[in-house]
């Protein structure tokens, strides 16, 4: 009896020691797991913020960013996506709240704004449904980005991204800072931050310099000769209507704004383009803006590799990518039937494309081969002919391109990337209504792109 009790006691001691060891190991691994979980939860918050910046997202937070509906997020505006667990209050404004946003003060030098400048929306996280626990981020904050908020100088004007660099002069797409705080049940906390802007392609599109841009060297432009050329078989004899208009059709009534009608990048191409762009009354631009002239482009649009990057970026976001076999051509019948004015799309054609018929396309069209345009058709949006850089049209019609056209030769005949930009060409010898610059359609096209991450950092928390 005594022996049995004694043995039992010893076994208990050994077991207790083993349990202690196992407990220590479990605690260590638990801490590690919790820390990792909070990191990935915080990143999930960043991704929700980035995803909901996208204008096409069904849960877009555009109204949270900018309740006034203007073209950019105001400087002192802040938008929070809140994601409280059941029964919990998440209030980033309140310094006494366990999830207070103390980082805002560090970046902006002031407390989190109040009143109309402070907007919140609820998270899309499935935690709200109560079925499956979603990522445990507590809030995601979206603000404009300035040099000051990035801790570089005192300049506090909003930054924009032109596809390669940021600027405070409004070129390209607005840059945002997304910050996310995650706290796990074991109180592991992580605060992480993205800087984002519309994908470089969209940023580059944001400030097209002319209704028709001929990028490269030795570019050529051929319009309907004298506006009355009639050397085709089309019944529509309306080539007198051909115009390339840089005046913004969406400018407020009574005001005038816009861009050049035709822009080229190499000054030595000026004489030939200007000579072909006659009569001058068919090539219009606002007062003070040359109707035909040299334009400057963001760096991403200045080199074959940059333009290739742009096309690749667009292709990643495309609704439809057509790749006709060599020697064949696809046409407007391949365009998505769901494409409409309220549902513009991105279509990329890796080859030649015939935009014929009597329909209207909406969105962004990229053609890497030759684009043959029958002006019975119309397009609302932006057309990029980047690759072979050839736009041809020989028929008449009543169609119009509302938006902008950009042409660049980046590939040789074999499809190899050129070292330097080649000679893009625009030829429209028939008629049609030409090209009408529309800032609204350019912006609508820009909004089709998703936001790209420009930078990332993890912020150490001072007050856990």
């Amino acid at each position, binding site marked *: 009896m005594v022996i049995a009790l004694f043995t039992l006691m010893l076994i208990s001691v050994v077991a207790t020691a083993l349990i202690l060891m196992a407990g220590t190991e479990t605690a260590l691994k638990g801490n590690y797991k919790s820390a990792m979980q909070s990191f990935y939860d915080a990143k999930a918050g960043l991704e929700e913020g980035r995803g909901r910046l996208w204008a096409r997202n069904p849960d877009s937070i555009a109204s949270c960013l900018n309740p006034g509906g203007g073209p950019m997020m105001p400087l002192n505006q802040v938008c929070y996506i809140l994601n409280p667990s059941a029964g919990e209050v998440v209030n980033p404004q309140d310094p006494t709240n366990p999830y207070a946003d103390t980082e805002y003060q560090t970046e902006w030098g002031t407390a989190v704004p109040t009143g109309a400048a402070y907007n919140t929306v609820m998270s899309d996280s499935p935690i709200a449904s109560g079925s499956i626990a979603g990522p445990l981020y507590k809030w995601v904050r979206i603000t404009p980005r300035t*040099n000051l908020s990035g801790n570089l100088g005192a300049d506090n004007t909003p930054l924009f991204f032109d596809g390669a*660099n940021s600027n405070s002069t409004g070129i390209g797409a607005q840059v945002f800072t997304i910050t996310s705080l995650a706290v796990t049940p074991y109180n592991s906390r992580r605060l992480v931050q993205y800087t984002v802007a519309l994908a470089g392609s969209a940023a580059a599109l944001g400030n097209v310099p002319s209704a028709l841009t001929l990028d490269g060297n030795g570019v050529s432009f051929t319009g309907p000769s004298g506006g009355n050329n009639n050397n085709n078989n089309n019944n529509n004899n309306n080539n007198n209507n051909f115009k390339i208009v840089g005046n913004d059709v969406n400018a407020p009534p009574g005001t005038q704004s816009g861009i050049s009608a035709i822009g080229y990048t190499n000054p030595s191409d000026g004489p030939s383009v200007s000579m072909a762009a006659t009569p001058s009354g068919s090539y219009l631009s606002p007062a003070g803006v040359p109707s035909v002239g040299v334009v400057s482009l963001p760096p991403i649009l200045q080199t074959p590799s940059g333009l290739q990057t742009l096309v690749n970026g667009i292709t990643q976001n495309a609704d439809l990518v057509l790749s006709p076999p060599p020697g064949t051509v696809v046409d407007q019948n391949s365009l998505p039937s769901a494409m409409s004015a309220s549902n513009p799309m991105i279509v990329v054609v890796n080859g030649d494309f015939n935009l014929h018929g009597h329909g209207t396309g909406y969105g962004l069209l990229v053609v890497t081969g030759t684009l043959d345009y029958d002006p019975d058709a119309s397009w609302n949006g932006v057309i990029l002919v980047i690759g072979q850089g050839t736009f041809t049209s020989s028929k008449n019609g009543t169609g119009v391109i509302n938006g902008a056209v950009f042409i660049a030769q980046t590939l040789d005949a074999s499809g190899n990337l050129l070292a330097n930009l080649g000679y893009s060409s625009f030829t429209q010898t028939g008629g049609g209504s030409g090209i009408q610059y529309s800032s609204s359609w350019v912006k609508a096209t820009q909004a089709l792109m998703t936001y790209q991450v420009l930078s*990332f950092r993890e912020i150490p928390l001072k007050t856990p």
Partner: protein
Amino acid sequence: MKKRQHSAGGFSLVELLIGTILFTIITGIAFSLLMSAQLRYQGESTVTEAFQQANVALDQIVRDIHSAGYPPMSSFSAAAASSNPYGYALPFAWTPSYPGTPCIVGSTCTVPGQYELIVEADIGNGLGVQWIRYSLQGTTLMRGMTPKGAGDPVGATNSSLAPYLDNVMNGNNSLSIFTYTFDSTTPPSQRQPSYIREVNITLIVQSAHPDPQTQQYRTITLTGQAVRFNPNQ
């Protein structure tokens, strides 16, 4: 039938002797088990401590690499960037010839190397972009941090280095702490620090004390991987 006689005086001497011997044997076994468990516990505690320290170090290295290159030059206007040349970050600093001529990792670079890495990042401590250096010296992994500035980043961070993790045995085993994966389009001859995409981290850490049972030092190996998120401008 003869009735068996029972002693009313208790156990006999033989019974006591047998009982005592059995008790001693069992107690001895039990204590030896207990002692063994205790030694085992001490040994495991030492290893656990080493594991915990290495884990914290690995986590910090990964965090630093995640922030490497923040903020990139492209996130500021050109005017602000040019007037604050130390206000933006490259992902990784190097030596020699920083910042003029990038060296080739694994060839002409002293840093980044097998046992040395310098991250450039603004880690939010209010001091702007920092050079954060990890350097294995003997069996001690050192960590130092100093604001990015002119000159050689190794020289600038030398005085800030402090012991960060002891008993790191990578050097003794000729096993790299840092190995690098580059952007896929980068040929080996052009593997400059800016093209580092991932850093693989291996820490071999020895326990501070020998195992009480075997009198041998025990080692643990932790591996981690950190991806560069920021652009290589």
